[in-house]
């Protein structure tokens, strides 16, 4: 084992930090990751990242990457999230949509999509959840019915981020009683309706996507018909630790402690304990995320490490949020304040990328090998 970074990796982190300081407005870096203003920012910022070779460094050279190690990408992801995730929705493109296309895509799909993702000029959304299929994704009903060289898609997807700005949707559909197929669907296709679902998340907008006799060529299907589960399972294991929330939460913790200090306040011993608990939770989340990266680095499937890592990330975000709202008290009720942002991002942390409870179910089954429920 070795917990150290190489000189190259340390320098890479410094270079990214310097780049972020030079390229990003301070206000942008204060925004809660995933906020809507990022759509335009992300196109500009990702273009610059791409020109430095830092958008998809971990991808194979033939698809626009530089074949860098997954550790370089881990460093990149941490620094991006710590800066408010200026890649916006494009973190999904580079984390798992692109890799899924690399793994399962046709030559034509690779040609059409990978270059654009690697250039940073395309926004995607993911069509996964349905009203009756949230944590229970297997219950999805949105169907794709084959008709000659086309598929006819009917159904509804909900709680989809970035849909109003996205050019493409990574869409999960049912193609048989037990089979799921993935389609790479242009959002401009006739029959797709996008509506905003009002939420208490304010600037982070989510949508309802309705598909009414949406006709797409069979060539838009990713991988085999009914072969979507394997692709999406692999993609989701990247997604579990694709948002290194601990990197930003740690900064929020330090910043709030500084605010308390600037006001002449002091921490009780009880609060000190909670501050250390929160910091330790962030450190633990970082290390357990690295376990998942390690699998990538050695070409193995992350397996249940991904669920443990994800659970640790949620815990870290909540531990920090819980403390900072207590420390800033009523001030944390002010919209856009640091504790308001932290509290609300912590509320959604246990749902995005699969609910916390699903992670616990999977840990029970695949890590602890507990007996199956009734």
């Amino acid at each position, binding site marked *: *084992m070795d917990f150290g*970074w190489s000189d190259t990796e340390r320098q890479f982190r410094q270079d990214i930090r310097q780049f972020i300081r030079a390229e990003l407005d301070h206000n942008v870096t204060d925004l809660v990751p995933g906020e809507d203003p990022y759509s335009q920012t992300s196109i500009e910022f990702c273009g610059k990242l791409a020109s430095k070779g830092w958008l998809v460094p971990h991808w194979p050279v033939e698809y626009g990457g530089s074949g860098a190690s997954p550790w370089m990408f881990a460093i990149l992801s941490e620094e991006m999230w710590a800066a408010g995730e200026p890649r916006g929705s494009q973190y999904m493109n580079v984390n798992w949509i692109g890799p899924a296309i690399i793994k399962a895509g046709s030559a034509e799909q690779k040609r059409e999509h990978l270059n654009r993702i690697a250039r940073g000029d395309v926004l995607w959304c993911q069509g996964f959840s349905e009203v009756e299929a949230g944590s229970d994704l297997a219950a999805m009903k949105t169907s794709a019915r084959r008709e000659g060289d086309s598929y006819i898609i009917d159904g509804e997807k909900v709680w989809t981020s970035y849909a109003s700005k996205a050019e493409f949707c990574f869409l999960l559909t049912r193609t048989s009683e037990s089979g799921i197929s993935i389609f790479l669907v242009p959002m401009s296709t006739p029959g797709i309706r996008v509506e905003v679902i009002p939420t208490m998340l304010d600037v982070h907008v989510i949508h309802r996507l309705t598909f009414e006799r949406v006709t797409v060529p069979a060539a838009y299907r990713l991988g085999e018909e009914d072969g979507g589960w394997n692709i999406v399972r692999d993609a989701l294991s990247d997604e579990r630790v694709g948002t290194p929330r601990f990197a930003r939460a740690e900064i929020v913790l330090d910043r709030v402690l500084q605010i308390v200090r600037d006001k002449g*306040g002091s921490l009780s011993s009880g609060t000190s304990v909670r501050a250390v608990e929160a910091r330790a939770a962030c450190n633990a989340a970082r290390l357990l995320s690295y376990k998942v990266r390690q699998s990538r680095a050695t070409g193995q499937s992350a397996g249940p490490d991904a669920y443990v890592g994800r659970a640790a990330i949620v815990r870290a975000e909540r531990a920090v949020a819980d403390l900072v709202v207590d420390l800033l008290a009523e001030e944390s009720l002010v919209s856009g304040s640091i504790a308001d942002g932290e509290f609300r991002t912590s509320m959604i942390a246990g749902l995005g990328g699969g609910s916390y409870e699903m992670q616990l*179910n999977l840990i029970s089954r695949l890590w602890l090998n507990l007996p199956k429920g009734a």
Partner: protein
Amino acid sequence: MDLDLNAAEKSVLQNLRDLLAVHPPAVPVYGQAALDAPLLDALAEGGLLSLAGQGSQGRLQAMLVIHEVSRANGMVAIGAQAMLGPVVAAGHPRRSIAVKRVSEVVPVRFAAQAELLVVLGTAQAEVFELAPADAKPESTHYGYPFARVDAALPRAAIGRFSAELILRRWQLGLAGEMTGALSGALAYLVTYLSQREQFDRKLGAFQAIQHRLSELAVTLEAARHLALEAAWSDGPEAAAMAAYYAADAARKMCLEAHQLSGAQGFTLEAGLHAWTLRLHALSLEAGGARWHAGVAAARIWGSAGGHAHVVGGDEAFYTDAFENTPA
């Protein structure tokens, strides 16, 4: 960055497993825990108590040894022996060690059996040779033998070391001992709850039980990796944080393990107490979770609050760390 075991680490673990097969630790008789001197001798002879003197890779190997010996209920102060031994008894790994904070006349683990007593002061730590008459055994059921040692021993110290060094190695050792016992307790729970049937179902098939075990598994993995990274870095912040996290987890596990294992878990024949009572004792050593957290807080945020002395070992350090950590 590489979180897989390397060949040397696998070899150390294999040597340890071979050794434990020859000297299998027994579940101690309840209330009569005693030092397992043959096991201590074997660990010393096998070179497994000298690893921490060999740089970051050596400390990682030592952490693996501590975890495994504690998991197996080895009745030695494996944390102190493997992490402090190479510092305070270099070249003499067989000498048994007890550790206490200065001015505290509290029950000290293995004090009546140890040959050396490490006394952690505010600026420095001193090492004394112990005579049997120095220690007054205490009655306890918490998994280890405990005894009190007077604040002033009737002989001079035989060694002096930086308090900072001794504290962080003590904390590393404790963190490893607690993660090992956490691991043993969780393995017991998973086995028991996978077999025990109530309401015509295995208890481990109930989601209410599964989620609680999964939470414990995440906590164990977090504690284990914090301890491993702290051993690698040997940083005072990391050691204090790892000790805090493990101590907090230890307390929770002691209660949760007995809740989940029901009345059966309280019986001596079940053997769960071998881990849980030790966890409780370990969670209190050196001042316990809150104290470790105070040290960590002072080191991470304290200096900016005007407590620059926290690293230097000022007289006020330990008091401040615990009582009055500034924001």
